[in-house]
C-alpha cells in the first residue's frame, strides 16, 4: 500500500449566520493515498465543497468555522499551523481547482503572470528565465498547445476548456502532493469533460499526486475515481472502492441515487425516484438524516443516528439496516 497523504478525522465545520448555525459538515472522516483518487459525491448542499474548503482552511469569513476534528497532510496537522505556515503549504503541497473556469481567473492579469506568481512564491528560483521555464512546463503538463504564445493572453481570450486547463496548470505548477478538484468538469461540455478527465489520469500517472474529486456526477466517478465517499446532509453515509459502490451499494441513499440516474447502455422503462427533499442543515432531525426519504426505514432510524460500520474491504456504511 502506498502512503497516506491526507487524513481527515471527525471534521466538523459550521457556519454562524444571522439566522442560526448551519452544520455544513458534521463529523466526516476519510483518507487519500498517493496516486489515488477519492471521489466525494453528493447533492448540492451536502457539504462536499465545504469539506474541500476546510482542508484548504479557506472558509468564507466571517461565519465559516471549523469546530472540531483533525486534518493531517503528510504528517502535518493543518489545523495547528499558523496562518503563514498554512499559506506556504497552500498552492504548494495542497492545491485546488474550482468549478467555474469562466470566473476563476483574474481578468486583469495575463495567463503567464498568474502562473508565474505561484511559481515565484513557492519555489526559490532566482532567475526570471527559470520561472518562465517552470510556467511553460506546467502548461505542457496540462497539454496546452503552444504554451509560449499563451503566456501573454488574458483569460477572456480563451475558451472555457482552455481556461480550466490554465487553472489546472496553476494548481500543478508547484507539484502538490494533494489536489482537491471541486466539480472541475461540471461547467464543461461532454467531450471536453472527457478530455479533462483523461488529462488528469495522465497527470496522476506522471506525478503521484493524490486527488480528491468532488462531484455530483456518477459518470465522472466511474471514470476517474478509485474510491468513493457518498455524502448526505453533512455526513459520509457510505464509502468504498468505486466498483463496490456501483456493484454492491449498501446504503439506501447510495442505492437510490445510482438507480435514479438514467443509463446510456440500457433502455429503462421507469426510473427509480427519491421523493422529498434533503433536511435543512439548520434544523437536523435527531435520527438518521435520510430517514424521512428512505423507503425501508426502521423505527430506530428516526430516533438514533446510525453508527458507521465497516463491512470489510474498507467498505463503511452508516445505516441501521446493515448488519
Amino acid at each position: 500500500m502506498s502512503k497516506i497523504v491526507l487524513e481527515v478525522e471527525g471534521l466538523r465545520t459550521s457556519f454562524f449566520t444571522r439566522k442560526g448555525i448551519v452544520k455544513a459538515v458534521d463529523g466526516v472522516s476519510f483518507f487519500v493515498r498517493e496516486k489515488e483518487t477519492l471521489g466525494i459525491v453528493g447533492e448540492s448542499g451536502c457539504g462536499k465543497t465545504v469539506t474541500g474548503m476546510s482542508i484548504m482552511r479557506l472558509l468564507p469569513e466571517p461565519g465559516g468555522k471549523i469546530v472540531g476534528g483533525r486534518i493531517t497532510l503528510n504528517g502535518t496537522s493543518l489545523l495547528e499551523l499558523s496562518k503563514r505556515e498554512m499559506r506556504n503549504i497552500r498552492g504548494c503541497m495542497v492545491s485546488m481547482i474550482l468549478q467555474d473556469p469562466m470566473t476563476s481567473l483574474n481578468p486583469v492579469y495575463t495567463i503567464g503572470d498568474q502562473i508565474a506568481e505561484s511559481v515565484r512564491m513557492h519555489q526559490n528560483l532566482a532567475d526570471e528565465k527559470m520561472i518562465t521555464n517552470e510556467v511553460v512546463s506546467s502548461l505542457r503538463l496540462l497539454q496546452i498547445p503552444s504554451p509560449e504564445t499563451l503566456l501573454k493572453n488574458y483569460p477572456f481570450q480563451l475558451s472555457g476548456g482552455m481556461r480550466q486547463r490554465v487553472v489546472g496548470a496553476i494548481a500543478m505548477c508547484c507539484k502538490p502532493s494533494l489536489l482537491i478538484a471541486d466539480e472541475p468538469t461540471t461547467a464543461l461540455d461532454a467531450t471536453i469533460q472527457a478530455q479533462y478527465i483523461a488529462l488528469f489520469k495522465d497527470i496522476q500517472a506522471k506525478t503521484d499526486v493524490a486527488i480528491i474529486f468532488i462531484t455530483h456526477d456518477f459518470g465522472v466517478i466511474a471514470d476517474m475515481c478509485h474510491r468513493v465517499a457518498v455524502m448526505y446532509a453533512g455526513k459520509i453515509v457510505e464509502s468504498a472502492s468505486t466498483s463496490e459502490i456501483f456493484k454492491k451499494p449498501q446504503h439506501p441513499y447510495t442505492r437510490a441515487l445510482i438507480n435514479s440516474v438514467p443509463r446510456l447502455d440500457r433502455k429503462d422503462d421507469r426510473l427509480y425516484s427519491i421523493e422529498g427533499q434533503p433536511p435543512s442543515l439548520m434544523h437536523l432531525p435527531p435520527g438518521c438524516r435520510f430517514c424521512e426519504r428512505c423507503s425501508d426505514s426502521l423505527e430506530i432510524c428516526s430516533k438514533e443516528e446510525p453508527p458507521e460500520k465497516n463491512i470489510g474491504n474498507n467498505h463503511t456504511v452508516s445505516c441501521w439496516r446493515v448488519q
Partner: protein
Amino acid sequence: MEYLRDINEAKIEKRMELRRKFSRLMLIIPVVILALLILSAIFAPLLAPYSPTEIAMTERLQPPSFLKGGSPKHFLGTDSLGRDVFSRIIYGARISLSFSLIVIFITGTVGTILGIISGYFGGRLDSFIMRFTDVALSIPAILIAIILAVGLGPSFKTIVIASSILGWSGYARVIRGEAMRLREVDFVAQARIIGSSRMRIMIKHIFPNVINPLIIIATMMVGLMIIIEATLSYLGAGIPPPNPSWGAMVNDGRNYLETAWWISFFPGFCIGLVVLSCNYLGDWIRDKLDPRLRRL
C-alpha cells in the same frame, strides 16, 4: 496559532439574538424622528408657538431658553428679525417634505418609464437614452438651478424644475439595468411563448420586478432631496425670504455667528438628523428588499 477553535454554540446563538434585538431597537429612533417630521409638516399651525414670518424687532437675537440669559418664551431662540427659530423649523419641515415628495414623484415616474423602455427595447434607442443619462448624471442640479434662478427668480417652482430636469437620470440608469437583466430572464421568454404582447410584458412582468429598486432609490432620494432644497435655498436660488426654509435659515445666521450661533445651528442640525434617519431607514429597506443593490 490554531485554526481550530473551541466554540460554544449556545453562547454564539445568544450573542446573535442580542444583536438582532439591538438592530430592531436602533430602528425605532429614525422612525420616531421621521414621524415627528411628518407630523410637524402636517400640523405646523397647531404645533408652532409663533408665526414663522412675523417680525418682532424687540425680540431679536434672543438665545434659546435652555441657555444662560435665554428667553423662556423662545425654546430655540430668535433670529435677527426676532422670529422664533423653533416655529420656523416646524414650518420648514413642510417645505422640505413637500419639495422632496414632489421631485421624487416627477423624477421617479419619468426615470422609470425611460429606464424600462431603454432596457427592454435595447439597441440604438437604448444607447441614445443611456448616453443622455450619463451626461445628465454628471451635471449638478445646482448649476441648472442657478441658471433658472437668473430668469425665473428664486422660488419653489424654480428649484422643483431645476431638480427634475436632470434628476430622472439616477432612476433611469438603475431601472434600465434591471429591465435589461429581466428581459433576458426566462420568465419573459416564457411570456412571449404564451403569446403576451410587449405592453403586457412591460406592465405585468418587468414593472412589478423593478418596484423594489424603485422604492429603494426613492427612499434614498428623500434625504438627498432635503439636502438639495436646503442647499439651493441657502445659496439664494431656492425658497425666497421670508419663507422658512431650513437652508435659508442657516444662511440668515451667517452674519451672526459670533453673537447668535443658534440661528444657523439648529436648522442645520435638523437637516442632519432628518437626513440621517431617512438614509438609515433607506438602508434598512434596501437590505430587506434587495441586498443586491448595495452599490447604489
